[in-house]
């Protein structure tokens, strides 16, 4: 059996060696794919709304991406995209239109044929007006023409970079069946709970608090796919129990780091269980320190720079992430070779420099050695965001800043940071969606209204930054647009409106019997049509 056992060292070496053309494991091709079997995987939560055309989030995709397909999916190598429902995509030179060629012979799970009318309806009635991310990217979408059943032409009222539309395809372009949604309120449609799509699996059953069950779609457009008879997502809220269930072979796979990092070394040694760090590059998360510029002290860039210098990124990567992360130098992750600038003027770990900057800014240490006190709100999203909060408190004490940690649950944290601004520093973990305009510029753009979660609620408003963001948004040619985003990274490095500490992806733990795991950069949130179970 030729299963590649991935190690932490292997992960680091692999990702360092192949920044562009990633040398990732093509798992176990030595054995012929086997049809059949039920794959049982752990789910640590149940999304409220399972419709990926309305809610583009990883929790939704984990289940829904097997049922409802996007137009294209990310792949390793090549130009990074592979066809799903669309077989070709082409932008016009003026940025006013994108021509999509759709796949032939595709049917919905209820037997109706899939056509360009479905794409047109979903784009105009779900992505543009309702979807959390689509509202940004498809804001200027004016109409979708359907000259024939296999062609959909997106028409924009203002030039929209084709590069952006292309980068948005994997996460934002899930297509809904028009015949079930037209004339209804999409948010209240019963098909949001019982999904109907074109994907390799049909939605079979959801028992709240227990499981989701998806069944093989025998009429799938790709011949002889999928391999699995069914996928069962068992809702398991306890991470210790997830690890035990893997060992007992009662589940075969746990994605999204459901097994705690601290447990990976032990479970990796259990016979029949493997630890797989690949397959999440396309959904890289960024560990950030969010800074409230409304605080007098924090409005001074020297103070923000000092905070950045106080953080030992290598320590964070090695101790908090146990090596399963990379130090970050700016707002675009290293994985995105398209935009990433490697030689930004960084803020290396330097306590003396941090102290000097704080002195220079006019905040000397008081009698007790403290310059000033801050409220620090670590986001509750991950174990690591909380742990980093504790680390940051200690790191800041070394430079004379007294940070008091305030722990909140999700709702309270969202309210405090993004609506009422009752924080000084916060620890965040935005996900990078493979184009700065989808996920990242919103963290730097000035003048956004209060109450928009995961956006610049920091009081940072630099005209030069806003201008470069606008320039990029209107840049139709890819080269000009890329140049603008490189300039964007340089301004961010100069101003330090927030501190990018590390970038991290998740870990999958699976039984050896599960094959074709992690074979694309969004694997956990992709189709699994080629995943199979060995006997």
């Amino acid at each position, binding site marked *: 059996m030729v299963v590649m056992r991935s190690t932490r060292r292997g992960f680091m070496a692999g990702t360092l060696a192949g920044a562009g053309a990633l040398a990732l494991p093509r798992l176990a091709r030595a054995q012929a794919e086997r049809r059949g079997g039920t794959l049982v995987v752990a789910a640590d939560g149940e999304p*409220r709304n399972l419709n990926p055309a309305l809610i583009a989030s*990883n929790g939704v995709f984990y289940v829904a991406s097997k049922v409802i397909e996007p137009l294209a999916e990310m792949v390793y190598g090549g130009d990074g995209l592979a066809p799903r429902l669309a077989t070709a995509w082409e932008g016009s030179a003026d940025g006013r239109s994108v021509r999509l060629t759709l796949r032939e012979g595709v049917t919905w799970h209820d037997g109706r044929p899939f056509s360009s009318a479905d794409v047109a309806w979903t784009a105009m009635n779900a992505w543009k007006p309702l979807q*959390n991310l689509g509202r940004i990217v498809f804001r200027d979408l004016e109409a979708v023409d359907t000259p024939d059943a296999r062609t959909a032409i997106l028409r924009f009222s203002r030039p929209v970079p084709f590069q952006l539309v292309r980068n948005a395809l994997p996460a934002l372009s899930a297509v809904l069946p028009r015949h079930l949604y037209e004339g209804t309120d999409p948010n209240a449609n019963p098909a949001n709970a019982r999904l109907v799509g074109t994907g390799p699996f049909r939605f079979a059953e959801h028992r709240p608090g227990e499981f989701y069950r998806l069944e093989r779609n025998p009429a799938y457009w790709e011949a002889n796919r999928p391999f699995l008879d069914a996928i*069962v997502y068992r809702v398991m809220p306890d991470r210790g129990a997830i690890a035990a*269930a893997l060992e007992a072979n009662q589940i075969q796979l746990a994605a999204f780091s459901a097994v705690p990092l601290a447990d990976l070394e032990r479970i990796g040694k259990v016979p029949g269980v493997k630890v797989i760090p690949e397959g999440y590059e396309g959904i890289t998360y960024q560990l950030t320190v969010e800074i409230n510029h409304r605080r007098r002290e924090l409005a001074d860039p020297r103070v923000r720079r000092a905070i950045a210098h106080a953080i030992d990124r290598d320590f964070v990567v090695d101790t908090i992430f146990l090596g399963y992360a990379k130090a970050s130098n700016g707002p675009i992750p290293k994985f995105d070779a398209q935009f990433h600038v490697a030689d930004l003027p960084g803020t290396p770990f330097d306590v003396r420099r941090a102290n000097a900057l704080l002195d220079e800014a006019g905040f000397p240490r008081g009698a007790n050695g403290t310059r000033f006190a801050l409220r620090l709100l670590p986001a509750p999203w991950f174990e690591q965001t909380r742990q980093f909060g504790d680390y940051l408190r200690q790191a800041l004490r070394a430079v004379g800043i007294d940070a008091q940690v305030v722990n909140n649950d999700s709702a*309270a944290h*969202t309210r405090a940071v993004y609506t009422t601004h009752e924080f000084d520093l916060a620890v965040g973990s935005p996900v990078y969606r493979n184009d700065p305009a989808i996920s990242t510029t919103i963290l730097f753009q000035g003048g956004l209204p209060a109450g928009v*979660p995961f956006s610049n609620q920091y009081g940072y408003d630099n005209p030069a930054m806003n201008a470069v963001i606008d320039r990029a948004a209107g840049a139709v040619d890819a080269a000009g647009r890329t140049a603008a985003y490189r300039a964007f990274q340089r301004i961010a490095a100069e101003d330090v409106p927030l501190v990018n500490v590390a970038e991290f992806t998740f870990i999958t733990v699976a039984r050896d019997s599960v094959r074709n795991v992690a074979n694309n950069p969004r694997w956990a949130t992709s189709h699994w049509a080629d995943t199979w179970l060995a006997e």
Partner: protein
Amino acid sequence: MRTVRLIARRLAAAVPTVLLVVLGTWILLEAAPGDAADAYLAQAGGGDAAFVADLRARFGLDLSGPDRFAIFALRLAAGDLGTSVVFSRPVAAVIAERIPITLALMVAAVTFAAVLGTLGGLLAGARPGSLGDRLLSTAALALLAIPSFWLGLLLIRWFAVQLGWLPVGGIRTIGGAGGVLDTARHLILPTLALGTGYVALYLRTLRAGMVDAWRADHVRAARARGLSERAVVWGAVARPAFLPVVVLLGQQAGTLFGGSVVVETVFAVPGMGRLAYEAVAGRDLALLIGVVLAGTVVVIAANLLVDLVMVRLDPRIGAGDA
């Protein structure tokens, strides 16, 4: 007659209890920072300003607090528990789904604890100070000190991972034939994890009651009448000692009903404890009040049952219309 009066009195007292519980829950959850829309947005990964406003309108959060309470209370008075924003379904349906499994787990754990605890307590209390008593009492203390989540993980490790006898969690074999036996098999480990602490509690309570009873006059009288040792232990010592145990059973009903959140989480049992947790995390007022109301009903019913048992155990109770 005494029984009927008792029931009527208890039910009358339940009405203000329920009202207070509803109001208290509402106020507590309103006071928590963040609302249902914040919780939703955190899970969904954000959205722009219009999206957020639209969401608040859909959840009815654009009205003032008192207005929302008035609407909710009126609906509740008409017997409608409202709609859960977390599940986008009627609260009554969501709760109806969870109650059977919670009650099953609760009854199993109480039965397990009461049977084992009573046996142990009788053995220990029959001869206070003996070697058997000391062994049992020490063991009980140790059991009482084990946190249920840790015991749960330990049980999983032994019985599910190493021995492979029982499922790690859940309440049924997915894709299996199902049935009562299947679910019972799934509930063995959660019952042990949940009930073990109570075994110890019942054992110690019963033993303490019996130790007290040995010194009572009626026991000496019973002996003086020449009753056998067995008759003395059963009739004179154990019977009064059961009273605090039964009271404890009633009190524990509420704790077991809602307090099994830890065990439910470890064993992935979709019960009321987890539902309450999800309701709080999602700032889902209607759902939380529904859960709390269901819990209140269970507690009131359990206490009523306890009162009725007490009436039988102790003829003095309820006699003088007290």
